[in-house]
């Protein structure tokens, strides 16, 4: 009797073991992703569009990268030290790394990449962070020391920039397009084939220094139309794609989708806001901006525009980032407080026409946003309705992106603007909030100025101590929410689907793509067998 009782336990153990062992992590198969646009270049120093950056990310490595919890960790660097009171960073490079052509990766390659980044003839948009470097020294074959003009904490993350091979590119003009179409990196995949506007095919780098990835090919199919990508998913022509809230909620609610795809709903890395032109007398008083914030229901925006897939934004940091604090509580939706604050500032409906007025002027303004983003237009319309409820007349103006940037944002030709920032993993946002960044073409285009915020932004840049930086950023978040230079609206979730034959996906704050080299497909389910290599 006693060992009969044990039998189920043994069986469970056996079943468990067999389910693990029956499919050792198989190699092979291809991952096909649908991409709206083609990469422009696979020369990572020149890549400024997201399609290029994605593909470069598979082919190249930086010295550092962000791990699944959004903390910095070594990539080509084994470790690093901060020296000379934060003036210098010493990187100890990994020793067994090889380029796709077999040549060893050394400190010379890092020095070469640096020299190209600050080369005035190279058409790179990324020189800014590297121009703060005072000297670059090679200490030995696998150690480099980078000294800054003054301590610059975001500089550490900037070394996530892809490192390019000196032995292949030393005497070449990197602007030339031939090089951008024949990339040689250190990454888990190498370029196999690139047909413009059709597909980019990457094949596995068997000698990748972390380990050989399981999936043999990574294929980007370029399909410029979102509805076509979605139709392709229904015949399993693409294995993964981002989804809109509507697709996520309704259109994928079919038995076919549930059988063949896993859906992922991950915290987003960006927020949408309504920015006020602070040079405009209407928005000068902080109480007005707070009143408007009380008058708009963010939960309603999320429900109507994102079908519930988003969070209320409470400041300029990603909720999952270490720089973010949950101490700042978003304002409630409360029309009475809003009206009271407006009354304090002198805005009352004196002639009972339904609109607030002051000195004979009706309170009205225009929300400017860009064409081609339905979400933003819908958001503007709901804000328009909510502000009408408290007697403020809002007009909406939608402008083509390029014109929007040069004619309206660049020239400060707006009253309020509805836009979004995507949030880089390094939280430093000096360029957006510091009062020195208000020239035409710079990013503090609302003209925000708060000396305390300026001081904290500078301080957070000067220390590498994450606790101290967190303290600064938490304080900045608090001050910004109090000042309301933006009406912080929402952080949309990032929605996507991946074919179920892929195993090993582990959602984390960084998303799902961070551990692609651990993904695998059991042999019996592999779809693209002819691509075996």
């Amino acid at each position, binding site marked *: 009797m006693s060992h009969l009782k044990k039998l189920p336990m043994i069986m469970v153990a056996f079943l468990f073991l067999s389910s693990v062992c029956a499919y050792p992590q198989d190699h092979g198969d291809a991952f096909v992703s649908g991409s709206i646009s083609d990469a422009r*270049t696979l020369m990572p120093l020149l890549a400024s569009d997201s399609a290029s950056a994605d593909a470069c990310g598979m082919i190249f490595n930086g010295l550092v990268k962000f791990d699944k919890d959004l903390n910095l960790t070594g990539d080509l660097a084994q470790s690093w030290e901060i020296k000379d009171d934060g003036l210098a960073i010493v990187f100890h490079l990994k020793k067994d790394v090889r380029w796709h052509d077999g040549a060893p990766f050394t400190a010379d390659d890092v020095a070469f990449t640096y020299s190209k980044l600050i080369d005035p003839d190279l058409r790179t948009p990324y020189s800014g962070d590297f121009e703060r470097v005072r000297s670059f020294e090679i200490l030995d074959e696998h150690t480099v020391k980078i000294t800054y003009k003054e301590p610059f904490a975001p500089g550490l993350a900037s070394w996530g920039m892809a490192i390019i091979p000196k032995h292949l590119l030393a005497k070449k003009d990197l602007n030339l397009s031939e090089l951008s179409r024949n990339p040689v990196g250190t990454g888990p995949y190498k370029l196999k084939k690139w047909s413009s506007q059709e597909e980019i095919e990457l094949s596995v780098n068997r000698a990748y220094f972390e380990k050989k990835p399981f999936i043999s090919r990574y294929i980007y199919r370029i399909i410029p139309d979102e509805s076509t990508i979605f*139709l392709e998913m229904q015949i399993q022509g693409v294995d993964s794609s981002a989804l809109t809230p509507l697709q996520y909620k309704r259109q994928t609610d079919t038995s076919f989708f549930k059988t063949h795809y896993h859906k992922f709903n991950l915290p987003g890395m960006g927020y949408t806001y309504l920015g006020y032109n602070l040079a405009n007398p209407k928005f000068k008083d902080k109480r007005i901006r707070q009143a408007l914030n009380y008058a708009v229901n963010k939960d309603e925006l999320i429900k109507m525009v994102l079908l519930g897939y988003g969070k209320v934004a409470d400041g300029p940091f990603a909720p999952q980032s270490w720089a973010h604090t949950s101490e700042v509580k978003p304002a409630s939706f409360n029309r009475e407080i809003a009206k009271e604050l407006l009354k304090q500032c002198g805005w009352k409906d004196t002639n009972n026409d339904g609109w607030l007025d002051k000195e004979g002027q009706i309170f009205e303004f225009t929300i400017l946003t860009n064409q081609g983003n339905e979400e933003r237009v819908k958001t503007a319309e709901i804000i328009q309705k909510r502000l009408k409820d408290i007697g403020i007349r809002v007009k909406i103006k939608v402008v083509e992106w390029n*014109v929007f940037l040069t004619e309206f944002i660049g020239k400060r030709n707006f009253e309020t603007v509805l836009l979004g*920032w995507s949030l880089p993993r390094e939280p430093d946002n000096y360029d957006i909030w510091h009062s020195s960044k208000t020239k035409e073409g710079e*990013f503090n285009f609302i003209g925000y100025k708060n000396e305390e915020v300026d001081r904290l932004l500078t301080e957070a840049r000067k220390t590498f101590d994450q606790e101290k930086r967190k303290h600064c950023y938490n304080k900045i978040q608090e001050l910004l929410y109090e000042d309301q230079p933006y009406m912080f609206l929402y952080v949309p979730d990032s929605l996507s689907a991946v074919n179920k034959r892929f195993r090993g996906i582990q959602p984390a704050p960084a998303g799902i793509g961070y551990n692609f080299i651990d993904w695998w497909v059991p042999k019996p389910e592999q779809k693209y067998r002819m691509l075996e290599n």
Partner: protein
Amino acid sequence: MLTYIFRRLLAMIPLVLGISLMSFAIIHLAPGRPSNVDQSLNPKISLETRMRLEKLYGLDKPIHLQYLNWLKMMARFEFGKSFSDNRPVSEKIMERIPITLTINIISMIFILIIAIPIGIKSALNPGSLFDKSMAIAVFIGFCLPGFWIALLLMNLFCIQLGWLPLSGIKSLDFEYLSFWQKAIDLSRHLVLPIFVSSIAGLAGISRYMRSSMIEALSQPFICTARAKGLPESTVVYKHALRNAILPIVTILGLSIPGLLGGSVIFESVFAIPGLGRLFYEAVMSRDYPLIMAEVVLTAGLTMLGNLIADISYAYADPRIRFRKQ
């Protein structure tokens, strides 16, 4: 005839210059900057960097100097390099031409094969049931929005029935296929795009054919031919049709620049790497060298089309030919 062609060709030179000057001025006057310089709204790309890039692309020079530089390049038959990826513009255009030309020529042939008989048959019995139903059918085809009919057909043939591939021009395993399998793979991918791009063109050609055929049939020489006792088929196809086909020739001549144009919408929906999308994206990202190349190409082809139409007109119509001589 030869001197006539030569004169026409010479007259084109100032025309091309004028067109290029005007287009150059217009795109540079349009608001916005090339995307690689200033379109990303990325705080990592500093103002200083953007000004440096502007200089590297030669955009800091006065506009008339930029135009002169462009003209110098054109004189060497070079279109320059695209701002977006720094590849030679001519290379970017050349790689898109085969697929665009294939689709447009096949659909043009398809349109002619279907629309001309419809036009003739309608003209023989104007007001008949066939005439009326065809008129309705071709106009429905003309009015349907291309992207919508494309998505419906994709849903039916590719998803519900699974007969055809959905998008792109070849399968992922294309390079592993034999020659005939490749041919079949390509044609399976092209069936829907060609069908969708032809359907709207039927209306124009068939209605032109109908009206010019009706006009031809009412001419006195048709009466004469019938009176001579010629068989009806000879009357219709030899005497009437040859006269009625002239306007169609003109239209074909004028559609030559269209052969190298493409529809952004159906190229996007079917994920076809054609010229339409190339130029559309060039305009959206203010890729000046690529836009200018397109202007020159279209202007050149339009003039060539006109020339060819005039010459074939002269060839088809003896009165024009003899007057010219």
